[in-house]
Structure formats: C-alpha cells, structure tokens
C-alpha cells in the first residue's frame, strides 16, 4: 500500500485503503454498490490528513488548484460520453 505524505496518517490511511479496495473490487466493479461503505474510515483519514496539509501549507495550494479546475471538472463530469476527444478540438 502506498504511504501517506504524513507518516502520522499511515495507519488510518491503510485501514481506509484496505476497506476501499475490498469495496471497490467486490461491490463497485460488479455494479452492486449502493453506498460508500468506507466513508466513516475516510472521514478519520481525512481528519488526520487535512491537519497535516495545513501544517505543511499545502492546503492553500490545493484549494487554488482545485478552484482553477472547476470549469474543467464540469466538463469532466458531464452526463454522457459521446466518444469524441474533446481535448483535441480545443
């Protein structure tokens, strides 16, 4: 399993990653998932990680980057795939 950028979050990250991989391969990939079962574990992991991102000053960089991408995201999340390469037409 990959390491967290914050070593103090490794343990909680590993618990979440294990849960996610099990859910992903046994439920999501089979199309039988109804809820994100690993959400409680993710929230614990996120709590640890966001603290680490803040102390390292990465949180602002991230926020900016994700705001820059909002338009992009909207394009990415569009409802149906028509198969064309939208990037090529730009």
């Amino acid at each position, binding site marked *: 399993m990959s*390491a967290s*950028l914050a070593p103090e*979050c490794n343990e909680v990250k590993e618990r979440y990653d294990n849960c996610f991989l099990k859910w992903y391969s046994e439920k999501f990939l089979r199309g039988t998932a109804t809820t994100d079962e690993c959400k409680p574990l993710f929230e614990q992991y996120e709590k640890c990680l966001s603290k680490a991102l803040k102390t390292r000053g990465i949180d602002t960089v991230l926020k900016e980057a994700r705001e820059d991408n909002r338009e992009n995201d909207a394009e*990415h999340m569009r409802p149906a*795939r028509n198969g064309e390469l939208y990037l090529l037409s730009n």
Partner: protein
Amino acid sequence: MVKFYSQSYTYDYPFPAVTLAYFLRYPNPYSTHVLSTDTISRHFDPDTQRLTTVRLHLKRSKLPAAVLKLLPRSILGASAGGDTQSFILEKSVVDIREGWMDTESRNLDFTGVLSVIEKQEFKRPAAPSRLEDWQGIEGATRRRESGGFFNFGSKSSNSNATKESVLTQSSTPEEKTDVVTTVTLHSHIGEK
C-alpha cells in the same frame, strides 16, 4: 507555448482490472520516485454508479541543470544536487455502468514555468452484437478452458508459451480496454 502529445493503446485486460490497477499503480518497483499517494476526496453516486476520486501524489524529481541555472535554489526549495519534490493532483471518474474511466493529472508546483496535464480515457470496447461474434467467444472460451486443464501442473518449458498463445486466441473485446492518453505541456516563460 503549448505542446501536445497523444497516444492510443489497448490493454489485454478487462476494463474493471485496468481501473483497479490505476488505483494500485503506486508503489511499484519502477516508480520509486513516487514518495506518497493520498486520497483527498472521494464521491460515489449510487444513481449513476460513478466514482469520483481526487488524489495527491508526491514525487521526487531532479531538475535539469539548465533550469537550475535559471532559477535560484531558494525559490525552488531544491538541494544542491537539484533534487526537489513536487505535488501532482490526480482526478479520476469511473463509470462502471457505461464502461469508461477518465483521469487527469497535473503538477501543482512550478506551474508558472511549466504546467503538464496528462489525461487518460479508458474505455470498455463495445460488446459484439452479431451472432458470429458470440459464437467466436464461445469457441474461445472452450479453447481457453481446455488449454487451462491441459496446462494444469505442467512444468514443461513451453507451458508459458502455450498459455500465452491460448490467451491470445481467446482474447475477446470484453477482455480488452482501450486507452487514449493526451499530454499537454504549457509553458508561461516568455508570455506577457
């Protein structure tokens, strides 16, 4: 200045396996420069069966000497040898019902100098609809099964070669995944 690269490829693995491999690609012995991978956010939509993930990778990189000369190290936070770390933000959406995965990765540091955006579109090939295609799959499945039994426990030197050829023969559209990768390099140097 913008530079653009595009490449198409077909993996000999089914779509679900490819999406799983995407999430599991680090750590691996060929990418020791990737130091960490964290999931920043994840959202599952039960109505569309779509999963959206944002991850943050930290990678070690060595700056080219020419770049080092141009930029003061104090700004880059690089060591004397030019070793530095940079963050990559990766976003992915998997739609298991429609059979596609879109990903986008971009660098977060030095974006004023160079921004690199890599996009990948993975797609499950359309299922065959014609009768002869289905018959082809049936035959292939039979061939693979008999091949499997035949090779079971065999230690002969050509056993792997046999398996390989059996797999190639039995390869159906369901066992392949198409991917289109595009990389856009955008440099702001020299821009007003």
